[in-house]
């Protein structure tokens, strides 16, 4: 082999390694984002109604509440835990909030603060039971999934609660500079959560505990505090999304957000979070939620059968998790 050929071969190999490394280093969010953009472009080409101001506003509004729920469910996932109760907590908050207004005649502010406080207490109980009592979070929050939904049905007598002030729905429909207020609210909440996770000690502790709880404990991280805060945040975010659902529909429904805990978890996972803990970002969560909302919107705009929509969502989750695993194995192979 001549000298030149050898150089070329080395160069080629180096280039290959660089590309391979880039492929391995890029976070999963990048691929999901690319997929979302691809779906958007495709829909914009296929449907003349997709890329219209009205429809984009719809998507932004529809994604907001789901994304907030997904943000909340991310914290326990980072800790290698899970919160299955977020959908039920959202439903219960909606019922408590609307009953405080419609039945107890309380003002918006009182109802708002009381409901948020209830959410935080629920979260603290979840976190405490998980860490201090050592019950697996799956079980603790499974109990919550049933219990809080039952409580919502019990309190409301299983009925929808109407009689919300008109201003509430007007708020959910308002826009600031053509961007729906709901979306801005979601963005602010998301930014705060992102900042907390990425730039504060608390955030780093969460990733540390999720990666190796025992190691985190040995270096002196107060695991119980961090765990409690993570579950409290999950419940708080669920409460907020429950309140926004009430605002959007102008009524409290005890069955609101049924099953949405799984969609929230799916959004987090599709957005790059690992159920084994230590991984996941707010941005990824948002992109995951956006992808699911887009698929729903696209299915409606293209007149695709709603049942196919569920199949597509299922395939998407399976595909992303498979892809993630593949990437991890490759990374491990590289050493």
């Amino acid at each position, binding site marked *: 082999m001549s000298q030149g050929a050898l150089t070329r071969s080395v160069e080629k190999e180096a280039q290959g390694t660089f590309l391979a490394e880039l492929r391995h280093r890029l976070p999963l969010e990048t691929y999901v984002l690319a997929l979302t953009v691809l779906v958007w472009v495709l829909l914009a080409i296929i*449907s003349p*109604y997709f890329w*219209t101001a*009205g*429809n984009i506003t*719809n998507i932004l509004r*529809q994604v907001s509440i789901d994304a907030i729920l997904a943000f909340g469910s991310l914290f326990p996932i980072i800790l290698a835990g899970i919160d299955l109760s977020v959908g039920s907590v959202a439903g219960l908050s909606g019922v408590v909030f609307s009953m405080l207004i419609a039945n107890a005649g309380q003002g918006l502010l009182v109802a708002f603060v009381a409901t948020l406080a209830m959410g935080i207490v629920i979260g603290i109980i979840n976190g405490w039971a998980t860490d201090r009592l050592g019950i697996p979070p799956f079980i603790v929050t499974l109990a919550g999934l049933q219990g809080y*939904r039952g409580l919502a*049905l019990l309190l*409301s*007598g*299983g*009925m*929808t609660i*109407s*009689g919300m002030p008109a201003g509430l729905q007007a708020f959910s*429909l308002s826009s600031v500079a053509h961007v729906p207020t709901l979306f801005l609210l979601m963005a602010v909440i998301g930014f705060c959560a992102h900042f907390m996770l990425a730039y504060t000690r608390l955030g780093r502790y969460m990733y540390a505990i999720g990666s190796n709880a025992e190691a985190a404990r040995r270096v002196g991280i107060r695991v119980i505090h961090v765990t409690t805060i993570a579950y409290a945040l999950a419940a708080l975010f669920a409460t907020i999304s429950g309140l926004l*659902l009430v605002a*959007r*529909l*102008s*009524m409290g*429904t*005890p*069955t*609101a957000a*049924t099953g949405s805990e799984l969609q929230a978890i799916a959004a987090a996972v599709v957005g790059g979070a690992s159920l084994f803990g230590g991984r996941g970002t707010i941005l990824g969560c948002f992109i995951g939620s956006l992808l699911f909302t887009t698929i*729903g*919107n696209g299915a*409606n*705009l293209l*007149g695709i*059968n*709603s*049942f196919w929509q569920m199949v597509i969502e299922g395939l998407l989750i399976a595909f992303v998790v498979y892809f993630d695993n593949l990437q991890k194995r490759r990374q491990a192979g590289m050493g």
Partner: protein
Amino acid sequence: MRKILLIAAAAFGCTMAQAGLEARAQDFSKTKIDVIVKATTSQYWATVFDGARAAAKVLGVQIATLGAPSELDAAGEVSIMENAISAKPAGIVIAATNAQALAEPIAAATKAGIPVIVIDSNANTDQYVTFLATNNETGGQKAADEIARCVKARTGNATGKVAYLTALAGAQSLNDRDKGFVEELKKYPGLTIVEHRVGNNMADRSLADSEDLLTRHPDLVAMFADNELEGDGAGTALSEKGLGSKVCLVAFDTSDTEIKFLRTGIIDALIVQNPYIMGYAGVWYALAAAHGVVFPKFVDSGVSVVTKDNMESPQMVGLLDPNKYVLSPFLGAQ
């Protein structure tokens, strides 16, 4: 033992009746009738319960009001039914959330000697006493006629694009409504169905579906929502987009939100069933059947069209608000 007592009571009741004595003399306070509905979370089913309670009061029987929280939960209703069968009530009044899943439990109850009155939604069996329900096909037909009338009133002729929303797949009553609607709409060749969405019986989903539908078909002239949660969602979408005066919306049932939309002109007509009578007559029939009365296999409980113009009339007020429902006294005692 209890069964023997029941039979004895039944025989006693018959003897009393034959003797021409007042039926009210019979003490039914130990007689229990189970009323099982599709979902405890909607006003519609609460009205069924209201009617059932009113009948229970008049007849002096005990009733248990049962049901799963969600209409999606067919398995939940099956287990409620199974539990009811083992408790051996004098009769069961049930609305089948899923025609196939509830067929076997209903047949099992009949086999166990418990008379079953099926209300509202039928199951794929004939092992019941009677099916007391809205003729849902008629309801769907009326919805189509109302849509044609509304579109004609607005634009001068009944032409344009129409969409309809189904709350849930696999429910017989909804299928019948849709069938009646689609068939009847063919009588108006100018109106064409361009879209059909199936939801999961949740208002937020039907809101999103309706929004997307209105985006896709900006020239839509009319929508039909086949139950109250779909009506809530579709109405909210129209009011959000300010399309209430442009798109004719006809919806089934009478939630608070729907009535509000009817009053504000977002909803143009509500197709209203009579759930109160289903509950009332259901309990009544169950007790009668337990004493050997034979009923025809189908009894129509009626369906009405409520518009903004007639919503305050005495006949309609009771349909919109069960608290104002007045049954004319026919028992003497009441």
